[in-house]
């Protein structure tokens, strides 16, 4: 048909396209400044702060991405998200432990390769999380979509249920269990003349790849399109003939699986203990609030910010002899500053 062709209008303003790069840019700037001012300190800076910070950020990201997407799409603030993290950790730890032929005959099936046990542990952890998460959504959350307060109470209650469950299972118990690392990732690598655990590098790589894959799915695929639209107006998506409830369950299950995978990789790093869920969930909530509730890029940026802030302040406390409470308070401080500047979080567009 004959349509006069007016000039094509630029798709997105430049400012909006560059927004996700602001936080990494700030960090690059800070590190660059330090490098210029004190060049001798840079190996320490990288292996002592940057990489450990990214390691923490990697775990925070896996926990917060799902939390944020679930909140954005269905307005559910899932307080039991950390429990799924913990459940993933215990599942993976159990695979590592019980499938080991050296472990006195618990399971008839054993796998000789520690690496294979580790990979199986990750997969089982993620699947357990996804399955439990989907079950929770279908059976408990779904009847309460119109009663948000009840949801909060319900998911808070689930925290206690899962906590008691872990302590009751004899093989798990209340004690903390030491991490079991796969043989291929036990070594330390030599980086800039300093040692750095290869497992941390693996964690960073895994989390970054997942972040990129999820971002691509959200950007490019039809299901990603549905989720992005649903985050803004799920009733309209339903009125377009899309079964939103099924999407809800899928996203809830996926977010739970991601959290559980986070727990599973963390298990070989920090070990497992019943409180791990709550401990990491606290940071995940800070991350999500900083990034903007419901924003996926916000979760990634917030994880980066909090991970680095945490290791940086740990380092500072260690160097200067300041009270350790300052290190723990630093993340909350960052949150307070961000919320003062942008009350809705970094990536909140409202």
């Amino acid at each position, binding site marked *: *048909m004959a*349509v006069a*062709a*007016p000039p*094509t*209008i*630029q*798709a*997105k303003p430049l400012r909006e396209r560059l927004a996700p790069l602001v936080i990494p840019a700030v960090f690059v700037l800070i590190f660059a400044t330090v490098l210029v001012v004190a060049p001798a300190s840079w190996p320490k800076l990288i292996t002592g702060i940057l990489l450990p910070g990214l390691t923490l950020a990697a775990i925070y990201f896996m926990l917060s991405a799902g939390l944020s997407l679930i909140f954005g799409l269905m307005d559910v603030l899932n307080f039991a998200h950390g429990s799924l993290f913990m459940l993933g950790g215990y599942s993976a730890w159990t695979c590592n432990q019980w499938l080991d032929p050296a472990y006195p005959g618990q399971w008839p099936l054993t796998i000789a390769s520690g690496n294979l046990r580790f990979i199986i542990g990750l997969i089982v952890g993620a699947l357990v999380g996804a399955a439990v998460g989907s079950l929770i959504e279908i059976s408990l959350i779904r009847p309460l979509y119109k009663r948000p307060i009840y949801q909060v109470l319900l998911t808070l209650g689930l925290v206690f249920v899962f906590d008691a469950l872990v302590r009751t299972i004899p093989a798990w118990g209340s004690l903390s269990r030491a991490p079991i690392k796969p043989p291929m990732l036990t070594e330390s690598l030599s980086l800039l003349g300093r040692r750095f655990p290869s497992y941390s590098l693996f964690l960073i790589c895994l989390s970054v790849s997942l972040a990129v894959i999820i971002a691509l799915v959200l950007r490019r695929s*039809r299901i990603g*399109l*549905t989720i*992005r*639209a649903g985050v*803004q*107006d799920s*009733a*309209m*998506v*339903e*009125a*377009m*003939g*899309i*079964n*939103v*409830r099924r999407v809800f369950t899928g996203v809830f299950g996926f977010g739970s699986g991601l959290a559980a995978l986070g727990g599973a990789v963390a298990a070989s790093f920090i070990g497992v203990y019943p409180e791990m869920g709550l401990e990491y969930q606290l940071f995940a909530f800070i991350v999500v609030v900083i990034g903007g509730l419901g924003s996926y890029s916000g979760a990634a940026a917030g994880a980066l910010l909090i991970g680095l802030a945490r290791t940086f302040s740990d380092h500072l406390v260690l160097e200067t002899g300041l009270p350790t409470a300052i290190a723990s308070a630093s993340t909350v401080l960052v949150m307070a500053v961000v919320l003062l500047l942008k009350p809705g979080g970094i990536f909140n*567009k409202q």
Partner: protein
Amino acid sequence: MTPILEVEQIQTFIGQYHILHDVSLHAEQGSITALLGRNGAGKTTTLKSIMGLTPPQTGVIRFAGQRINGLRTFKIAQLGIGYVPEHRAIFRDLTVTEHLILAERKRGDLRRRGDLIFSLFPDLQRLERLLGSQLSGGQQQMLAIARALVPETQLLLIDEPSEGLAPVIIEQMMRAITALSEHTTVVLVEQNFRMASAISQAYFMLDDGRTVDHGTMTALRANPQLIQRYLGAA
């Protein structure tokens, strides 16, 4: 001929509020039917009840002879009912193209219906890459209707298409709705009586959650008293 849409004595509650007391209406195939009434008369809730967004507690809604009340919203939409809500409900972070792709129910819907959509709203073609939040009110309204037309649609429910639009854009919208009524039946909620009376053939008058009158638009135009009584002004 049986009407494509029949609403019989529905009652709808939103929370504890009794919004619709007794609403009945019907729409003939290929016609434009206007729902008229003051603010708060229940026009929007009537459309939402048809879509299953605020399901009616009693009464019957039939589409093409099939009872649809009690079905879930996405099922109702899949039967061939397009919904253009008030305030348009455009997704601010999605581009125009993404809106249309999301609206596809079968692969190739957009290819099949693209000609119709872009002949109704040629402007949309050059806006393809813009985000919902970057569109003007009129452009958003065009996109909201276009989105509803992407799948095969037998019935289109449009809520206040003229809301907040400039007169020249309203003219455009009226022409587009008249043109698309050759392809689908339209039920229109409209505050702007001039617009509603210019394009629709039939009307249903709602007042305080009840259908109080209905007939042909020609008859209504000849009855200024009725217009004065239920709409306040001619």
